[in-house]
């Protein structure tokens, strides 16, 4: 019985919050402000807790405390460096020594910039270039005519699209015309993905409406 009551409370709460968020579409109002305030508080709390257990606990606490000495790798104590850097981060709250918090920031920025440099170069530049280089008539020279046209369009589109992104050359003359074709390609692509996305965005709304009409109001079974 109690679980039945809990279920009803939860259902009405969810419906209250759903409608509160939707009410923003009409205009800003008290209801929305309440939902917003609750949302910000609870989500910040949730992330803090989830981060604590998923990161600090599993990455640090388990490594330096929970795991028995015998099972630890030889270099387990290196984890303390991470914690030390983290504590330096906390110094941000002390105005006089706040500048020290730049060290952990520098560490994160530097390490990830290095990582991005190579991984993005490999996946975004090298791989894409390799993928673009294909015989126009297909690998076996047996591509049907529409596929040949498609291959030509892909090659031209990639070529002119890249021309558009040139910054150090003025878009004039033949170069400018190629850039113009490139931006045509970009616009077609943007229009297409906008139109394509409508379907999945509508699905989300249908899902919410389904909740209101069938789970909450029980208007449909």
């Amino acid at each position, binding site marked *: 019985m109690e679980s039945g009551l809990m279920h009803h409370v939860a259902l009405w709460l969810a419906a209250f919050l759903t409608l509160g*968020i939707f009410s923003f579409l009409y205009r800003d109002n008290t209801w929305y402000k309440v939902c*917003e305030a609750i949302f910000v508080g609870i989500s*910040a709390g949730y992330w803090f807790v989830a981060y604590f257990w998923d990161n600090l606990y599993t990455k640090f606490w388990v490594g330096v405390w929970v795991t028995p000495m015998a099972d630890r790798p030889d270099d387990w104590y290196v984890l303390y460096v991470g914690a030390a850097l983290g504590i330096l981060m906390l110094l941000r709250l002390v105005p006089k020594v706040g500048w020290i918090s730049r060290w952990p920031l520098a560490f*994160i*920025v530097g390490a990830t910039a290095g990582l991005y440099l190579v991984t993005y170069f490999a996946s975004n530049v*090298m*791989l894409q270039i390799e993928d*673009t280089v294909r*015989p126009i008539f297909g690998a076996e020279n047996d591509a049907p005519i529409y596929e040949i046209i498609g291959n030509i369009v892909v090659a031209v589109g990639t070529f002119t699209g*890249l021309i558009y992104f040139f910054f150090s050359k003025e878009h004039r003359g033949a170069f400018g015309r190629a850039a113009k074709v490139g931006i045509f390609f970009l616009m077609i692509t943007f229009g297409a993905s906008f139109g394509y996305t409508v379907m999945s965005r509508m699905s989300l709304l249908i899902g919410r409406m389904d909740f209101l009409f069938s789970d909450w109001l029980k208007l449909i079974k």
Partner: protein
Amino acid sequence: MLFRVAIAFACLFIIAGVAGQPAGDTALAVQQTIAPVTSLIATNHEYDNGTGIDLIWVPSIDDRLAPSRVTGYEVWRSVVGGSGSRIAELPAGANKFTDEQCSRESTYVYSVVAISVAGNAVSISTAPIQPAREWINLHRLNLLAIAFLVSAAVIYFIQSARSGKKLFVRKIAGLDAVDDAIGRATEMGRPILFIPGIQDMDDVQTIAAITILGRVSRVVADYDTKIKMPVSRSLVMTAARETIKASYMAAGRPDAYNDDMVSYVTDEQFGYVAAVDGIMVREKPATCFYLGAFFAESLILAETGNSVGAIQIAGTAMPAQIPFFVAACDFALIGEELFAASAYLSNEPKQLGSLKGQDVGKAVALVVIVVGTMAATIGSAWDVTFMNQLWSALKVVFQTN
């Protein structure tokens, strides 16, 4: 006597183990009807941490003569001094395998068993082999070389710009509007909203956004406009505060700076959006900047911003979100333009030099695409050897693994 029998059994077991067949099956193999694989060779898998061994062999002659006779192959491995185990099953026709689960401390012996309905055939075992580890992955040498080339171009042009060489940079739509947009906010007495995306400082897009913030906040400080910057990552909050503070210092008004200009909301994507939407309708910013890494929230923000009549300047390198910014904002920086913007706005020669370096990268890409596509097409359509060689050479140069 007993001792000899024991030794005999032990030998039998070792043979069985190496061959990977239980003793019973060995008896079956006597009446084999298919030929075993030949020329089985084990080599160290190159450029790894000593965990891989490559196997290559010539498939059973029966596999080639009558394709359906051999149903598959099994790879068996035994550690020298230990028992054998089956590590892989491969379809008929297979002629190589890479064992990636080796330990650097052990020495291994491999054999390959050809499987058929009538019976199995065990190959001769390989010589014992121990995987080796290398210090440098030479398979990635091409990546290193090309990345180095592009980086060298960036550095070269930065240096040449520093030494006073004038560089042309084309107009980037939207960026010239930045000053006007801030001026508009000042005239209207309304704040500027700056959203640096929802990713942390470990995303290069966020760094680019913060660099642009440096420029925007400098103008804001000069004009004495209000700036509002809710963020969803605390590291971004730290960096943004430093940046805005530095801008106010540079403008000679450190007293006008206030930590409240930047505030942390929540890491939660939609919790953050709910709060930013609220700020927008309540404070009615005259200008909104959305620069950095965005996901589904891009359109929610841009539409709400539009409803309060703000001028909106957006830029992201998230390919899926660019269309929404293009459709819903007044100015949108497309992909690479976001990175170019930080250089363009700074107007520092060294920053502009890097744009020229990026262009060298694009020029290389263009040449490779044109030459490669032509080589591939001519090579495969008319069987021109040189073109085919060129094509495969390009493939090797640009492949990644």
